[in-house]
């Protein structure tokens, strides 16, 4: 066999230097990504394999890094809003909310009640669409091709609904400090009311086709065993920690908006495995529908944007604040520091996927390659959010 590769090329790049060939010649060093179907974008994981068993895994980030935090320091408070939809394109409303909430907290801005309800409705719709996409993509990872199409069928309705409010289908940026940019269209609430029973009727089909499927159960159960203590060490939040049996949800732990007025459960699973995280998300779909049902009943009439809401040249008062919301992947935090000018002095974005992915290396050790794919999918990663 001929090799035209120089020794440097064979030994890999900077990041794989910790994986240099050791005394064990049977070890296979494998680059999973950045172009790999199940790393959901451009995550790269360097694996040391013994057969198909993973001896060591190390994620390498930064392939989708856009330095959103530096952009914040060069844009006005309002001008930074469109960035939020791009950080996590699957749950854009939650990121919008986290940022807008931080600005409101900093500036002491009131939000009209109607706007709070509009935020809840759109945020929960967006959460459903995010979970549906995760569900389909996870099953793609596990080799089932059809569910993602069914999920997209339902997700399309949500995108239509959100389009009718915000005008865009994915990277929504229609929340504003002090409310929302647009009021709901006339037919919107009726359409949401019609959507809720439709979605409820679809969930049993999802369950019968996928959740109960014995092949899927064998792929997920007892895979990626994640004790609660480990979640804590890595700061995992969202469905990951709830799948490990801890009912931690920012909507309840640090209530914001009108969530304290809405009744919903926090689904948890004690199995601590990939199936637990799967079931938590499926349970959340139902809870989102419950929240929606209450919100469309309770939404009051009124203004959607408070009078005197920040204009583009608005200057935030001096100070710092930390505001967290519950995104589809966990706790989204925005740490905002203002020096009194019209641009943020510092905007730190806490991405839930960042912490959730950091535990992958420990979780994947000793598992099969196929299990690693299953674990990776069960963490519900969105790489742009992790790299920011």
């Amino acid at each position: 066999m001929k090799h035209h590769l120089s020794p440097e090329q064979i030994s890999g790049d900077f990041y794989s230097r910790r994986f240099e060939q050791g005394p064990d010649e049977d070890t296979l060093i494998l680059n999973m990504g950045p172009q790999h179907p199940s790393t959901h974008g451009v995550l790269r994981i360097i694996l040391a394999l013994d057969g198909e068993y993973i001896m060591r895994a190390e994620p390498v980030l930064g392939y989708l890094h856009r330095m959103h935090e530096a952009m914040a320091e060069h844009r006005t408070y309002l001008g930074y809003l469109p960035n939020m939809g791009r950080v996590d394109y699957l749950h854009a409303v939650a990121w919008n909310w986290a940022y807008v909430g931080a600005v409101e907290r900093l500036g002491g801005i009131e939000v009209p009640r109607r706007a709070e309800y509009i935020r809840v409705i759109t945020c929960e719709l967006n959460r459903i669409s995010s979970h549906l996409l995760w569900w389909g993509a996870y099953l793609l990872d596990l080799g089932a091709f059809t569910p993602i199409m069914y999920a997209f069928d339902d997700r399309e309705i949500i995108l239509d609904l959100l389009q009718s409010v915000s005008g865009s289908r994915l990277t929504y940026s229609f929340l504003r400090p002090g409310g929302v940019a647009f009021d709901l269209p006339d037919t919107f609430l009726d359409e949401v009311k019609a959507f809720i029973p439709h979605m409820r009727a679809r969930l049993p089909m999802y369950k019968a086709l996928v959740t109960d499927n014995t092949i899927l159960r064998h792929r997920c159960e007892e895979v990626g065993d994640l004790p609660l203590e480990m979640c804590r060490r890595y700061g995992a939040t969202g469905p990951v920690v709830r799948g490990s049996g801890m009912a931690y949800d920012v909507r309840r732990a640090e209530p914001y908006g009108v969530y304290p007025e809405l009744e919903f459960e926090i689904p948890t699973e004690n199995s601590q495995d990939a199936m637990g995280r799967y079931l938590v998300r499926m349970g959340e779909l139902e809870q989102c529908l419950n929240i929606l049902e209450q919100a469309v009943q309770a939404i009051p009439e009124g203004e959607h944007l408070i009078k005197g809401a920040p204009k583009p040249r608005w200057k935030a008062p001096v100070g710092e604040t930390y505001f967290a919301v519950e995104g589809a992947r966990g706790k989204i935090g925005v740490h905002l520091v203002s020096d009194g000018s019209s641009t943020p002095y510092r905007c730190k974005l806490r991405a839930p996927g960042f912490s959730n992915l950091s535990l992958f290396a420990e979780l994947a050790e000793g598992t099969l390659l196929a299990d690693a794919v299953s674990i990776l999918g069960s963490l519900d990663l969105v790489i742009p959010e992790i790299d920011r």
Partner: protein
Amino acid sequence: MRKYIQQLKDLKSLIVGLFITGDNLRKSTVTVHYPRQEVHNLASFRGPIELLPKPKNPTQPRCITCMMCVSTCPSGCITVVKHKAPKPSAEEKQAMAEAEARGEKVAKPKAPKTPKQFLYDYSLCSLCGLCSEVCPVNSIGFSSDVYMVCRRRSELKLDLLARLKAKADREGRTVDEVA
């Protein structure tokens, strides 16, 4: 032993799955077949921005070149060029000079408020809508153009004034008709 029986029972779920996909196979398709059909909700889509015409003149924008949109746009995708003030002719200059000599207040000719050029780089735009919100005369709106295609990036640099005129022409609306 119980484990094995349970595993056999679980096989039922495979049959159920087959019935579900089989049921869907029987049903009609749900996709929209693009060239033959179109989606129904294009109107609510907020696509590339466009200039809104004056109520009485569909070829003229309402824009007063206040430059609010230019300074607000987070990605700097709007360029507005103002008209220059018309140069007074020799006679007018003379008249002005005479008037000034008389100690009267002279009104210098003012530039028209309408924009000379209104350029928009769609490739940079993130469709946040801040420009349309800050516009004092409500001159910027969203088009619902979802079918815009281009071969190179430079084609995304749009001349909104020309597009406004083209739109008026396309709709066959002229100044006279409106008036």
